[in-house]
């Protein structure tokens, strides 16, 4: 099966899954945003960042606290914890947090859309990493300000087979 067929299957499944009569209303924090397919399809970090935040160069900030192990035995389950310093009030909050694994075949891993009701811009999840690479967290405030942190994780066993 070639990429064309893979995309046809994926798009057909995606289209079927989005029929309004079959899906309950999604009370999304960001109603305007659909699942970021272009970002998830990007095959380089630069492309993934451009397709999600519009640029590939974001200043590092100590406000973005990214916690990952220095070495992960099993690249299939790498724990990632992020907390971004922010008042999380309606006037000033972290709207979106983007997680990338720089060298993964599809670098965009996940996006989190917060609201002031989140209390903290905090998440913890586990990611698959294909090999030693930076994990990169980019936070975007409700005013559009971007800030980032990146940490290398050394992988012994690839999480991608």
């Amino acid at each position, binding site marked *: 099966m070639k990429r064309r067929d893979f995309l046809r299957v994926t798009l057909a499944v995606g289209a079927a899954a989005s029929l309004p009569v079959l899906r*309950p209303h999604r009370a999304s924090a960001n109603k305007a945003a659909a699942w970021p397919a272009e970002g998830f399809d990007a095959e380089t970090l630069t492309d993934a960042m451009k397709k999600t935040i519009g640029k590939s160069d974001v200043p590092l900030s100590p406000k973005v606290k990214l916690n990952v192990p220095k070495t992960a035995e099993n690249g299939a389950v790498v724990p990632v914890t992020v907390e971004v310093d922010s008042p999380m009030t309606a006037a000033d909050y972290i709207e979106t947090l983007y997680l990338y694994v720089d060298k993964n075949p599809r670098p965009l891993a996940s996006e989190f859309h917060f609201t002031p009701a989140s209390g903290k811009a905090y998440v913890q999840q586990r990611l698959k990493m294909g090999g030693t690479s930076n994990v990169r967290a980019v936070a975007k405030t409700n005013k559009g300000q971007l800030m980032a942190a990146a940490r290398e994780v050394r992988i012994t066993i690839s999480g991608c087979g």
Partner: protein
Amino acid sequence: MAQNIGNPLISMPASAKKGEVVEVHCLIMHPMTTGLHRNEQGKLVAGNTPAHFVKTVDVTFNDKPVMTADWGIAVSTNPFLAFTMRAEQSGTLKIVWEDNKGGIWSVKSKLTVV
């Protein structure tokens, strides 16, 4: 053979003081397959099997948005997630997971705010 899929779990305090930020842990069983495999050159390429993964996680409290997550193929199998919520009033937290094949699962938890 039936796949072990769904069966979401949630762990969060049953009560909190008003204004307190509570931490929520949740877990769902899901294969989270990437749809990628290694070709003869060792490169990861799409092909043989389609990806099957949770695409969105929607968190609401008393039906108001708290947090929404968009996930791709890099999220691990049986995905665990921790996040927070500010406790303002008593009510029900609801988490809904949707995957790329139309699979939908949800779980609720009540919170009493004192």
